[in-house]
């Protein structure tokens, strides 16, 4: 017995998703402004140039989210019977790989600049008829820009947790750490101002390392999801509680002798495959129907449920859990 459940999300989640979409658009617009302003004053500071590239790259997960959003809502077709939910994961992977590649490249450039002992030049600029050192303008701009992510980072994080969306979570984690890159570039420019040439390269290395790290975590996270790792919480640290509850519901049924399940995390929604060993040889279709309904009612993320009647269980999860327990017992 199976059911492809509801296609629409509950009203509350629909509202949150709309909110997330609007927030991502607003942040994209804000970032477009900061990218332009920084490009105008950036000068020869390697740290500032790296922070600027980081600003550009930070839009990738947001764009991936906005592009994937209309796609994941498409109904399953004969050609795509599981629906289009994985679009979000694919977007996440593309963004992760881009971050990884550019982060590695920037790391290399920062290190080679330090090895070659490049002394970055920053001269003056004319502002409102006055000649001032350009470094002060760069620091002022960065100090202003530092404020943005401090406001929208936590907003994104809150939505990501409410929606249980991993792409949004990764994006929010990046936004929350964004202030460190801006602060780092201020340190680099101040270093140039003080005549400490290597401080700029060191700050650039720090910023590019954080881009590289974002790339590693995003690529790893998206690959794990696309490889059908078991359903986890948004930060991929724990198994998702829904899994245990599905098994609990099935094992609690009167006609069920034993039950187990596996869940595909499709990004925003779960596809549940459950297996039950009945107590008797005959099973009523209406009982099976009710079991599917019970599982669907568990959580809004459970969207597609199939329950199979089997003579014995062959799902690895119990064994795996026992293994884990043994591992924890003997360190």
């Amino acid at each position: 017995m199976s059911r492809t459940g509801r296609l629409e999300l509950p009203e509350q989640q629909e509202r949150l998703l709309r909110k997330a979409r609007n927030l991502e658009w607003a942040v994209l617009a804000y970032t477009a402004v900061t990218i332009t302003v920084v490009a105008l004053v950036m000068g020869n500071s390697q740290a500032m140039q790296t922070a600027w590239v980081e600003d550009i790259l930070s839009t990738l997960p947001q764009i991936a989210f906005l592009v994937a959003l209309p796609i994941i809502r498409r109904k399953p077709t004969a050609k795509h019977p599981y629906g289009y939910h994985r679009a979000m994961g694919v977007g996440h992977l593309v963004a992760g790989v881009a971050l990884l590649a550019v982060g590695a490249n920037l790391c290399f450039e920062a290190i080679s600049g330090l090895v070659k002992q490049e002394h970055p030049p920053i001269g003056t600029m004319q502002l409102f008829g006055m000649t001032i050192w350009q470094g002060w303008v760069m620091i002022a701009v960065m100090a202003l820009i530092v404020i943005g992510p401090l406001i929208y980072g936590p907003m994104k994080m809150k939505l990501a947790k409410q929606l249980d969306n991993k792409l949004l979570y990764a994006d929010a984690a990046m936004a929350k750490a964004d202030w460190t890159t801006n602060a780092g570039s201020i340190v680099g420019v101040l270093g140039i101002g003080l005549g400490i040439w290597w401080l700029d390269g060191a700050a650039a290395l720090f910023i590019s390392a954080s881009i590289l790290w974002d790339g590693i975590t995003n690529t790893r996270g998206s690959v794990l999801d696309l490889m059908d790792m078991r359903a986890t919480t948004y930060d991929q640290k724990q198994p998702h509680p829904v899994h245990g509850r599905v098994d609990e519901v099935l094992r609690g049924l009167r006609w069920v002798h034993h039950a187990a399940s596996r869940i595909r995390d499709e990004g925003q929604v779960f596809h549940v495959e459950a297996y039950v060993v009945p107590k008797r040889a005959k099973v009523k279709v209406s009982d099976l129907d009710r079991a599917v309904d019970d599982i669907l009612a568990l959580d809004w993320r459970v969207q597609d449920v199939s329950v199979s009647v089997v003579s014995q269980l062959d799902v690895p999860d119990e064994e795996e859990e026992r293994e884990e327990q043994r591992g924890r017992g003997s360190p």
Partner: protein
Amino acid sequence: MRPTRPRRVGAAVVAVGIAGALAACGITIPSDVEGTLDAVTGGVLEVGVTPNPPYVDASEEQPTGSEVEVVTSFADSIGATVEWTEGSEQTLVGLLEAGEIDLVIGGLTDDTPWSDRVALTRAYAQAEQADGSSAGLVMLAPMGENAFLSALERHLDAEAQGER
């Protein structure tokens, strides 16, 4: 646990405090990595020249031309005497990188291919090029000597203002 906002504001206050303390200790921003401005002030300003009339004319014993005049007046403003070295751009850029000379002039423009190896001043004037396009005139300073570069640019700005 993430740092709370008041703590971040606190960090910013500390940063400003450090900057203030540095200023109080007589540290100026920008500073030179190699201390060029300090060395040439009241001393000798080593200038490389590539002949390129009307900016630099090296046919006489002492170079003349509009850029030579500007550099001489800059040297006067910091109490330095100028020593001229004539050579090709490539030779002079090499000397500049090695720290043998402090400045290179010769009607160079802001799209000079040497910009990876030396610091360009802001364009101090516009000049028509051989192909009829317009380009900004610049001088070449050593990389990372930002106090020297800034002092030179301030002087160039003042000269431009005086002409107007």
